[in-house]
């Protein structure tokens, strides 16, 4: 229990650290927000107008005060107002987030559905031809950039089969599930491609380790059939590295996938962050990064929870 308690306690500390980093890092970039916002028109502002704008966005105060106010706001669920969108940052993020979450989940499902069986299969066929094929495919999968995969998929479908991926205005899942899935499946496969390759590689090596463990030999000596040896005795012991990898990858995906969103014209978090950075929208960048870090930490916490359910040694503390 103390393991999880420790993890829970470090959570707010890490968040605080992230908030400080984000807030001050973005202000170290030269240039000011009002110029960035208004472009050439900024030159037309009178100093008074400039000041009142600065006061409106709260950027006229000393930086520590700004940070403090921002932090108080964060606790109240107020991440500030986006300069470019003219809307509260949190509502913009929450608008974009469902798509990113859905994309990340779908990619992970694709990755685990393909990668785990492939890795386990390769491990049980160690050094045979089928193992080599899986390993080569995984290597290719891992080393192909996902925009290339995305473009190849679109090209293959349109040129080969005359099918075009469903494009156009993004439809949320709840509005029209079928249309939504039609829009999301290709991006999910694109993102899941490299992810699946990593899962394959890591589950293969973890399984190989576990399959030579003593308890697997014990299971065999009891007459446990091959299938149960693999899925019931070996796999649960091999899952920890797979869970770790999946957690980290999933955490990254929750931060948005800029290239894939761009290719499939999806309004996800990745493009939001990119726009915010290009337009120097302080509040939005801060809000997004904080939100992404928060998600990352939540995912890691969930991963830790999963460890605990997977392995009693972690739950009970290493005894003996």
């Amino acid at each position, binding site marked *: 229990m*103390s393991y999880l*308690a420790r993890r829970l306690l470090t959570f707010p500390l890490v968040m605080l650290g992230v908030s400080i980093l984000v807030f001050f890092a973005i202000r170290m970039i030269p240039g000011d927000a009002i110029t960035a916002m208004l472009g050439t028109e900024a030159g037309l502002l009178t100093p008074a107008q400039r000041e009142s704008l600065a006061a409106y966005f709260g950027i006229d105060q000393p930086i520590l005060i700004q940070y403090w106010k921002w932090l108080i706001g964060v606790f109240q669920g107020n991440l500030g107002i986006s300069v470019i969108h003219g809307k509260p940052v949190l509502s913009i993020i929450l608008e974009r987030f469902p798509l990113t979450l859905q994309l990340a989940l779908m990619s992970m499902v694709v990755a685990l559905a393909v990668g785990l069986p492939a890795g386990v299969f390769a491990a049980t066929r160690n050094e045979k031809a089928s193992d080599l094929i899986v390993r080569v495919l995984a290597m290719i999968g891992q080393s192909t950039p996902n925009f290339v995969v995305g473009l190849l998929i679109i090209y293959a479908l349109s040129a080969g089969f005359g099918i075009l991926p469903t494009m156009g205005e993004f439809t949320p899942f709840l509005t029209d599930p079928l249309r939504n899935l039609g829009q999301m499946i290709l991006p999910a496969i694109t993102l899941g491609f490299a992810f699946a390759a990593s899962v394959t590689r890591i589950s293969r090596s973890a399984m190989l380790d576990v399959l030579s463990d003593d308890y697997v*030999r*014990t299971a065999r*000596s*009891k*007459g446990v059939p091959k299938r149960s040896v693999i899925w019931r005795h070996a796999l*649960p012991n091999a899952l920890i590295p797979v869970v770790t990898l999946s957690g980290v990858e999933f955490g990254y995906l929750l931060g948005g996938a800029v290239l894939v969103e761009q290719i499939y014209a999806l309004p996800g978090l990745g493009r939001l962050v990119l726009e915010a950075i290009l337009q120097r929208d302080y509040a939005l960048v801060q809000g997004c990064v904080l939100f992404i870090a928060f998600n990352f930490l939540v995912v890691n916490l969930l991963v830790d929870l999963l460890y605990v359910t997977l392995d009693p040694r972690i739950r009970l503390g290493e005894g003996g």
Partner: protein
Amino acid sequence: MTSLLSVSNLRVGFGHDPAKNEIVKGVSFDLAAGETMAIVGESGSGKSVTALSINRLVDFGGGKIIGGSIKLTRVDGSVLDITEAKEPVLEKIRGSEIGMIFQEPMTSLNPVLSIGTQIEESFRLHRGLTGRQATAAAKDALDRVRIPDATRRLNYAPNQLSGGMLQRVMIATALACNPRLLIADEPTTALDVTVQAQIMALLGELKRETGMAMIFITHDIGLVAGIADQIMVMQAGQAVEQGALSEVLDRPQHPYTQHLLSAVPHFESGRAARADFSRKEKETPALDVDGLVVRFKVKGSMFSRAQGSVHAVENVGFDLMPGETLAIVGESGSGKSTTARAILGLVKPTRGRFATHKGSITDATDPATQMVFQNPYASLNPRLRIDSILAEPVIAAGGRVTNETREKMKALLKRVGLPEDSLERYPHQFSGGQRQRLCIARALMLNPSVVVLDEAVSALDVSVQAKVLELLVDLQKEYGLAYLFVSHDMAVVERIAHRIAVLYAGQIVEIGNAASVLSNPQHSYTKRLISAVPSIDRRNQHFEIDTRQVPSLVRPPGFEPPEAQWREFGPDHRARAEA
């Protein structure tokens, strides 16, 4: 009566070309129902591979049966050649007709499944039991191996039980479906000697209860005396001698068997203790330890303070003269290794004072004390050449590697019996015994006065062990070294110790002259330890099953143990008074 198992001319190979890499080279034997055969041999003799071939587990380790037959008479009377059986048939036989237990109980159970689940599995697979019935059967199986409080223990994860308990669980699992043959592959090697005695007693009782046959694999020829009906001695993949127990033990024919029997240190209750040293009055000890206490704080949860400490070493004191060997004996958790480490500065003592004749020891780089560790395979850096390994202590002590140092290396290598060209080689090019010689040479590089030997021969085969012990004795005489010899093996201790300190639960319970302690033990723990030593002479003697556990060493904060009361039993022999 036909035999239960008939193995003839079995040949097993490994690797891509099994015929070229034969590990078992034509082994034959017959085993009748209810009979126990011991396979004895040193590492690499092919004894485990032979055993693993009988239930064809050898296939999963990269082995392949390339010749011969293994004929098993099944429950229905039909005879099956296991070498030709298909995997689905083998799965039916494993666990139901042939059970197996292994050397390492700590790693042989699945860490993520409860004890109960793992025992139940056998009943589910072979008996078709489900739900409550399977659970009830698992509980009965635990009762059968005398595990107290079985119902609660079913829900335990393996890491919540001790090694001895886990081996019982393994036995319970293997015997779940009453197999007619149990293969026991070094089942007690990883266990403490008193636990070993308990497991051996249990196996003996279960054998009588169930009438099963058993193949018992061991490197310890002393251990088989109490359990086997016949013995097969293996060397380099061949059975060099086989026959009835007494026949082989009393009238060994093959030179290797004779060698093995003479190399095994027989425990002789103190009669074989060394008598080549006597303490002189008023000599300065090479090492003087006084009131050594080592405690490790037990961490509390987030919000509470430390809940106490593990009293690993409690008020240990002794002195060690130049040229003398003090053996520290005890079981795992007794604090013997912690004592050794504290003396070397590898563990920070909570209290206590120790001094060499050169002064107080302050840290691990004190050249006056050096150490040789248990596992020669793990204690030499595989990436360093031998000359670098031998130079290491010199550099650590602030010296420089000069021509003189190199001369010293060469001389020492020669002295420990290694070829001179060893300096340019790497550790993997040496055998286990040679590596331990290297470790000894490394320890001697700085001319220490005290050498701490922590289970220094435990990982070696018996014949190698005997030679290394011989070397140690010679070096001791030559350089006047004082040895602190930490060991759990009473027979080895008898060969090398002048004095013995018995450690139990972090405290010395008995200390004194080796011959006196071993021949006339006074403390109940010392007696228990000595009676558990397996021996060829005490053939067919049965041990009482003793389930006593070592008391918990975790004490509340601020706890101080009461002052020890000692009773004297001769000029150099005293034991702690028991309540």
